[in-house]
């Protein structure tokens, strides 16, 4: 595909402003960016703290000047101060740390508008709940804050018995006194179950006569057939599927709060990493209405491509799964802060759900109690190979979700069949890439695959992985050190909202690789702090072809910046987790400012 960003940046930096008209001619309407006008001097200069550039050539500088949404100068303070004019605001960092804001390497932005309407009933570190009473308090606060009216649903997420001091499932009768008139649903951390209160059972029509469906769980009140509160799997999924959905307007109204989840964590580029047609319509509307102030990178889901073609290319007469020749033009450039960057393939499920696809069986039974379970591919290999051939032939970037080594093998087969080579610079991103085998790193290098790892998995589910796959396989999860040694560009992600948007925890986990019990899982794969931060900044930018504008502090780069209250390169390791964003800037404009406690 034509790499618009690279070409644009190339022209800008080598030919200069005179080429502006030429550049504009190459760009679709609305994609033009603010120009840094050196002659006008700095709008703002940051100094007086640690300034971490994420630039290997010069890791720290004394001062940074910004203008027109870009970095104007970065270097020694005396030199940067030359850009100062009477209008320049000089910001004293007061010993805090300025660095490039973070690029979300993979997550699901469309979960954010939903989640801001829900109460967080997770246990630490995701949420505040350690006992049943905490849940009631969190829900009461939520009702107040959200102005939830009598009769409306109260929804919480992250419920998990393992966080409760009581060590048992929450009962409907423990929610009923505080919430007699509101149906309450607390979704289990696996998203496969929930606790309901009595009003909710009434609303969904579950009572003592409701049979437990095959493959489902309905806990009953002792000595009766009355549902007790907790439901799982097939007893829960239809309820969840039939929940009243927020209107488009309601969702649009949440977008500020939704973006604040990212901005408050110092993230200014968000990923919508498996976009359905209706979500894309929503995001386009949000963009057109000017509601986006962070960049959103959308990856349409491969199964949605026929629907998207029907919608956006109604005159196309190709076969059902064909992609029009013009389709690549829809990718690679922002329009009102929304861009499509590539097509998302999903080859398997999740390792913690045992639905990832491995080449060797797990040591524990499958999700349905199966023996010799190694998971399954989501699609037959021939279909994956055919769809990959089609997308590669059109020059559209491929983002493939592969968790188990067998799904990675399928991806390698598919790319080889399509004739893909590393020197074509296609930047195929293998999302998660968690249980890859050492021998597969060679294939990544050969095919130009770039892994986006998920190191916080070591913390959240590391012990489960040891139990399911054994210590050897589990220790090689998200092998960042080995991948970097092969020259692979690695990013790191949180898969929001599977885990919270928390770059400091991502960074920390890649550095320490400790599980919840403190075990170091795969000590050889630990990386240093600098590389760990690169995975969240410049490497993540590279994967979406924005390394020439994001992820580093250097002249000409976007002024996407974050001020942190401590320097993640120098604090004690355990203190990394406590580092907070103080202020976040998107192209020089403040988009988040921490309220003093």
């Amino acid at each position: 595909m034509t790499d618009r960003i690279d070409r644009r940046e190339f022209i800008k930096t080598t030919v200069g402003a005179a080429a502006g008209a030429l550049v504009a001619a190459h760009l679709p309407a609305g994609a033009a960016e603010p120009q840094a006008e050196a002659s006008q001097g700095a709008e703002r200069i940051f100094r007086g703290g640690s300034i971490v550039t994420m630039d290997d050539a010069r890791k720290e500088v004394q001062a940074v000047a910004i203008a027109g949404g870009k970095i104007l100068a970065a270097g020694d303070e005396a030199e940067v101060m030359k850009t100062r004019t009477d209008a320049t605001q000089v910001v004293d960092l007061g010993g805090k740390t300025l660095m490039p804001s973070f690029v979300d390497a993979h997550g699901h932005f469309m979960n954010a508008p939903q989640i801001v309407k829900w109460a967080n009933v997770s246990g630490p570190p995701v949420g505040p709940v350690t006992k049943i009473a905490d849940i009631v308090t969190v829900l009461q606060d939520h009702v107040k804050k959200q102005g939830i009216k009598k009769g409306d649903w109260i929804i919480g997420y992250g419920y998990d018995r393992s966080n409760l001091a009581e060590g048992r499932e929450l009962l409907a009768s423990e929610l009923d006194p505080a919430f007699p008139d509101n149906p309450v649903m607390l979704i289990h951390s696996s998203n496969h179950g929930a606790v309901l209160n009595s009003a909710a059972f009434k609303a969904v029509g579950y009572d003592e006569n409701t049979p437990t469906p095959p493959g489902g769980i309905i806990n009953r009140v002792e000595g009766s057939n009355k549902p007790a509160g907790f439901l799982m799997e097939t007893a829960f999924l239809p309820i969840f599927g039939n929940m009243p959905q927020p209107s488009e307007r309601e969702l649009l109204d949440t977008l500020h709060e939704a973006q604040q989840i990212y901005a408050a964590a110092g993230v200014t580029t968000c990923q919508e990493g498996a976009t359905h047609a209706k979500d894309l319509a929503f995001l386009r509307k949000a963009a057109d209405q000017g509601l986006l102030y962070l960049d959103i990178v959308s990856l349409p889901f491969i199964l949605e491509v026929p629907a998207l073609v029907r919608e956006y290319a109604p005159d196309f007469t190709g076969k059902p799964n064909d992609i029009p020749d013009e389709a690549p033009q829809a990718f690679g450039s922002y329009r009102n802060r929304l861009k499509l960057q590539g097509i998302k393939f999903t080859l398997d499920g999740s390792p913690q759900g045992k639905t990832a696809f491995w080449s060797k069986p797990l040591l524990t039974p499958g999700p349905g109690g199966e023996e010799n379970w190694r998971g399954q591919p989501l699609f037959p290999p021939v279909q994956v190979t055919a769809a990959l051939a089609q997308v590669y032939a059109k020059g559209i970037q491929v983002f493939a979700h592969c968790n188990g080594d067998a799904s990675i093998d399928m991806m390698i087969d598919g790319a080889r069949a399509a004739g893909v080579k590393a020197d074509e610079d296609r930047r195929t991103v293998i999302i998660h890439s968690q249980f890859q085998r050492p021998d597969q790193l060679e294939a990544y290098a050969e095919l130009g695959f770039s892994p986006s790892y998920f190191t916080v998995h070591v913390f959240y589910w590391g012990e489960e992985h040891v139990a399911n796959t054994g210590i050897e396989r589990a220790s090689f999860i998200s092998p960042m050190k080995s991948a970097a040694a092969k020259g692979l560009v690695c990013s790191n992600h949180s898969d929001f909202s599977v885990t919270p948007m928390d770059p400091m925890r991502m960074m920390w986990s890649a550095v320490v690789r400790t599980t919840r019990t403190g075990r170091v899982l795969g000590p050889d794969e630990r990386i240093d702090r600098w590389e760990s931060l690169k995975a969240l900044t410049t490497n993540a930018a590279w994967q979406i072809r924005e390394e020439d504008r994001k992820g580093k502090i250097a002249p000409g780069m976007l002024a996407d910046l974050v001020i942190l209250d401590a320097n993640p390169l120098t604090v004690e390791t355990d203190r990394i987790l406590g580092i907070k964003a103080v202020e976040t800037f998107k192209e020089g404009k403040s988009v988040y400012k921490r309220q003093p406690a």
Partner: protein
Amino acid sequence: MGQAMDLPFTVIGGYLGAGKTTLLNHLLTNTAGMRLAVLVNDFGSVNIDIDLIQSHDGETLSLANGCMCCSLVNGFAQAIGEIEKRAGAFDHLVIEASGVALPAKIAQYGQMYRLPLDGILVVVDAEQVRTQAENRYVGDTVLRQLAQADLLILNKTDLVPSEDLESLRAWLAGLAPGTPLIESVRSEVPLEVLLGARGDCGKGRGPAPEQQGQDHAHADHNHVGTYRTWTLERATPLTRAELEGLAAGLGSDIYRAKGFVHLAEDPDRRQVYQQVGARWSLEPGAAWGASSGHTQLVVIGRAGAATPEVLDRLMASAMPLASVA
């Protein structure tokens, strides 16, 4: 969620290319008056005669013969929702599992909406299945699919020499012991074998009075000698033990049995009996009312199959209808 729909459903599984979609197209164009709701993974592959399509609205396709085709692209819940909107408009729901799906898992999805499961049909590519079973990616999935079938449809038998077919049958019998096997070409299997006849044996609906007669079991050969049908009619009530014996004893030459039963333990109302392969169910139906209680079952099996012993025995133990009245 409160009210469960009374809509029996069938899962059609089988690996990619086995002939699931051909089977669906075949069903949708030979419905014999049955109104089918069909959930498919991918609209692109459903190749329905354009003349039959009445309307196309997003993810649903309405057909002139009363059938509806609904894509699963937005998830199972939404597709079921589309069907619930038109509750009562359909006689049977057919769910196409994806090529790598485990059909028993899909059956659970239907059951979680409290729909009665009629059966799991797994279509097998006679030419490819043994190669597929050895594929490093999908071999274990293919084997699991076979083991989860209530009925196996061995398709594309015309592409396989008869001696290979013989060893294939034995191989399948080893992987799915006792599961009846229907052989087909181009997925052409009659609807009454796959889904049962249109609801005339359904809850509360008895046969026309003139069909009542003496106890007998008669056999018909139909469909150019591919299938054999037995009709069991008897006035003597069946005990639950006898019925369980019947269900367990039909054997792997019998594909399906359907009808209503006069049950000794619950003699005042009909019991609706359904069997596909080894999977069977008995659900209480409407009261006999004016008509006298009697059992009527239609059993469909392989052409040339012997009458199952259990059927013979039930006939022998029955008293003539006249002496009961």
